[in-house]
């Protein structure tokens, strides 16, 4: 099966490369050209500056949003009154595209990085909150009863039963949030920024630099993929006791 996968990938790349020999539209580069431009860009400092600027927006936003989401989601799952206070507002605003708030955030917090970090945090909050909340609600009652039976206090039950049982759901939410943080970061940078990968792709688009376009595309793809692997790795390491889904 691994061989089939590798050969499929190789066949697609080969067909793409052969099509390029035959002549592709100007905006479709061949795989070899993309790799060449990417390696070239890796040799210059400019690409790293853009990557750094992008990460400096998306990672703090992701951290703030998912921390708040996990904390409030856990709390809302346990405390009924907090749930009644928070969950209607959260579930009401959940399907709303948060990026639409970017212009007003720019007015409030300036057009610098702060407005972008906050909009990313806002977008990242929802998946983690909702998952943490459902994770707590799905805690098997029998585990709580056993802990009670063995004389655990409320704090201890929360720490040693509820949180571990909600943890896999929280990680699933964080995985969505991380992907979302890259999307919102990229969108915010395309709309208004002076640095970052989204900005780079805008310059490339406006000056018809297709090489830069693909370099930016490949960089964000690698970042997104690596971030996702990292969350999944952390999930496996921290929750080694949990049965891994296939």
């Amino acid at each position, binding site marked *: 099966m691994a061989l089939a996968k590798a050969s499929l990938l190789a066949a697609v790349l080969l067909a793409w490369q052969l099509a390029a020999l035959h002549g592709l539209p100007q*905006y479709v580069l061949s795989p070899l050209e993309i790799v060449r431009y990417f390696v070239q860009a890796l040799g210059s400092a400019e690409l790293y500056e853009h990557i750094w600027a992008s990460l400096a927006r998306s990672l703090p936003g992701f951290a703030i949003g998912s921390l708040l989401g996990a904390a409030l989601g856990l709390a809302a799952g346990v405390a009924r009154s907090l749930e009644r206070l928070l969950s209607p507002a959260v579930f009401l605003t959940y*399907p709303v595209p948060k990026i*639409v*708030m970017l212009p007003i955030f720019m007015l*409030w917090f300036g057009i610098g990085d702060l407005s972008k970090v906050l909009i990313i945090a806002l977008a990242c909050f929802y998946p983690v909150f909702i998952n943490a909340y459902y994770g707590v609600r799905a805690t098997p009652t029998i585990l709580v009863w056993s802990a009670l039976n063995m004389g655990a206090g409320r704090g201890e039950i929360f720490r040693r039963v509820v949180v571990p049982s909600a943890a896999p759901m929280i990680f699933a939410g964080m995985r969505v949030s*991380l992907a979302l943080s*890259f*999307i919102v970061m990229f969108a915010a940078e395309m709309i208004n920024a002076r640095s970052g990968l989204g900005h780079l792709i805008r310059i490339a688009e406006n000056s018809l630099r297709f090489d830069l376009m693909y370099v930016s595309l490949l960089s964000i793809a690698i970042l997104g993929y690596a971030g996702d692997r990292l969350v999944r790795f952390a999930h496996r390491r921290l929750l080694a006791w949990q049965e891994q889904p296939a």
Partner: protein
Amino acid sequence: MRRFGLYQLLPFVLVAVALIAWEAAARSGLWSKLLFPSLASIFRELILFVTNSAYLMEAWVSLERALGGFALAAVVGIFIGMLMGRSKLAAGLLDPLFSGTYAVPKLALFPIFIFVFGIGSLSKVALVFLECLYPIVIMSYQGARSVNRVLLWSAQNMGASRGEALRRVVIPASAPFIFAGFRVAVPVAMIVVVITEMVSSADGLGYLVIYSLSSLRTDRMLAVVVVTALLGYLLDKAVVLARDRLIYWGKLDTYYV
């Protein structure tokens, strides 16, 4: 537990506090009207929006793009998901593709899509399609995989063909998963439409947001934000309504899997 008094009002407290704080900020005069337009002026713009056919047209344009991309993704996504769930070979080939590129922001393809599909609606619908495809494929794949084997065996035992088993067993059994995928995909469709319209467009709600900001009409901008929010909310409600009507045998409330 108290079932009356303040406890009953708790769900509205947060919204009420937010609105009062907003109006207080607007009236305090500490900030410019540009930063905090009063609720009254936002409401006036909102009324203007829903009574003006030109504005409603912009909302319709956005809705059309979102629904077009979503519908395409639903058809193709369910097909791919079923294929992956029922065929080991398809799963082996396609699963690495989807899980490998799942976390990659497809939005980055938008500039290239503009060159390929043009600057009009098509590039936006294509991007909506691509972004919505992932949750729908992943969820219907999971649904098709988790079909109770006994049900399939019984169907086969009673002489059902492969097509019949798919239609009468696999699809109904994975319907709750498919709807869970829809619920993730619908907000994604709205997000992508608004983003692409904000980045490059001459129509639609995203364009209106940017246009009102550029003309320093924050009240109008916030009215458009409210309309977008309402649309997103109503679309989600529509999916839930359709789910509750169509599948009464199983609900899946997990948002993200």
